[in-house]
Each structure stands twice: as structure tokens, then as C-alpha cells.
């Protein structure tokens, strides 16, 4: 009756697109190198890591999470992000039909190896629009310094 709502056109282009996405994800977007602790396609949340002259910025794409349930720890330069995502889908019974269930739910945990020169005491974490952003300052010695010429 309402199959048009959930059937996806499986045209050749859609399949190619899906394959391209799978490849680009498992190889890292844009060919950027992946860390040994970042696993293949399908991990939740997906993580991007960037570096500025003064900090390392970690972005975890984790929509629909209660910020209070997020657990972020740094131990021996390993950043761990864990938490749980509540399920919105109702229990399957005779009255409810489930057509698509692609969104991951339940407990998750991921780890990221940080560069050696970060200062684990200076960390800031913010959660906005479903993206967890963690800024870890570089240690003072690793930050660019201007040397006065006498």
C-alpha cells in the first residue's frame, strides 16, 4: 500500500554511488590516512581529526545523543568516546510496521590515537547539532613560538 515510501530506486547509478561511498569511507575520505584505531565502514560515530598550530580537533558525528550520557576520556594519548544512543523505534507489534532501520542504536565506543605532543590537561568538549567536537591543546613546547631577536 505504501511501498513507495520506503522502496529505493536501485538504478545502476545508485549502486555505483553506494559503492563509491563504501570505498571512500573505508579508505578515508579524500584518501586521508586513517588511524590504526579507526575501523572500517560502519563505525559509529564517524570521526574526523584535524590539527591547527595550537590544537588537535576531533569531530565525532554522533547525532541524537543526550550530551550527559557521553563519556570522553584521555589516557596515554588515547582518546576514548563512548555513550549510548536511545532507540526511537517502537517495539514491533501488530500495530506498528518497521520499514527501515538504518540508524545505529545502543552502546558505542571508539578510540582515537592522539599525536604525542598534546596536553591532556587542556581539553574542551562541546556537543552541538549532533556533532561532538573535542579540542585538545598542544603542549606549550609544541606550539609555535616567536623568538625575539636581540
Amino acid at each position, binding site marked *: 500500500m*505504501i511501498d*513507495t515510501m520506503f522502496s529505493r530506486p536501485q538504478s545502476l547509478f545508485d549502486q555505483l554511488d553506494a559503492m563509491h561511498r563504501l570505498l571512500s569511507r573505508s579508505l*578515508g575520505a579524500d584518501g586521508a590516512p586513517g588511524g590504526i584505531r579507526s575501523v572500517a565502514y560502519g563505525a559509529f560515530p564517524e570521526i574526523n581529526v584535524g590539527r591547527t598550530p595550537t590544537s588537535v580537533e576531533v569531530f565525532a558525528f554522533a*547525532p541524537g545523543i543526550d550530551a550527559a550520557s557521553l563519556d570522553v576520556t584521555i589516557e596515554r594519548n588515547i582518546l576514548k568516546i563512548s555513550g549510548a544512543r536511545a532507540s526511537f523505534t517502537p517495539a514491533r507489534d501488530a500495530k506498528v510496521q518497521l520499514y527501515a532501520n538504518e540508524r545505529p542504536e545502543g552502546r558505542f565506543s571508539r578510540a582515537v590515537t592522539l599525536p604525542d605532543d598534546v596536553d591532556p590537561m587542556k581539553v574542551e568538549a562541546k556537543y552541538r547539532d549532533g556533532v561532538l567536537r573535542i579540542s585538545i591543546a598542544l603542549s606549550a613546547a609544541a606550539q609555535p613560538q616567536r623568538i625575539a631577536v636581540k
Partner: protein
Amino acid sequence: MADRNELTTTKPAESNQRPVSPAVDIFEDAGGITLLADMPGVSKERLDVKLDGDNLSIEGHVEMDLPADMRALWAEVNMPRFRRTFTLSRELDASGIEANLKDGVLMLRVPKQAHAQPRRIEVTAS
């Protein structure tokens, strides 16, 4: 590879890049259909829910204030734009759609037309 300085593109000029299909949950109960879509990084201002005839499309641009001098160490995702389109069927009440975006999750509720709601037919014995 041309420009590795960008983790996630935010410039509108690059919005012609191929969009990513957001992961969805869709379920139906007696009153209508509920759709949940994961769109992390999309704010209310950058979300577009459009209805064109029977076509319901959701589109969102990822917006994050990235430091200009940041370079990527690694990136698992490159998702400047989400987009997915669904076809509604006739017994759904397109004018009654409600949309709510919270923490990067879009929740859409599409109610059924009043006459399409299940109704119990009384059987009277004569």
C-alpha cells in the same frame, strides 16, 4: 585530494558536490508514518524539508565553524550535504507533516488522511 585543508566543506559554492543519503528509520502506526533521519552538523537554518506533489525531500547542509588554519590528520567522512527523497502515497496527509530537528536528528511525522485511518466496522446482527 586537491585541497586537504578542509575536513568538511562548508562553502555554499561547493554545494554542488554529490549529497550523502542520511541513514533513516521509518515506521508506520495506525495514525501515520514517522521518519527519523541522522543529519549531524545540520542546524535548523540549513535544513530544508520540501514537498513537491508527492515527493518529499529532505536536504541539509553541514555547517561547522572550522578553524581556517586546520589541516586534516584523517577523515572518515566528507559530508557537506545530506539529501534524500521519498514518494508519499495518496492516503497520507501531506499538509499535516510535522518536522522537528534535535541534536542532528530530523523527525518527520506524516499523518494519514482522516478517511484513511483504520476504522472498525460494527457488525449488527439482525
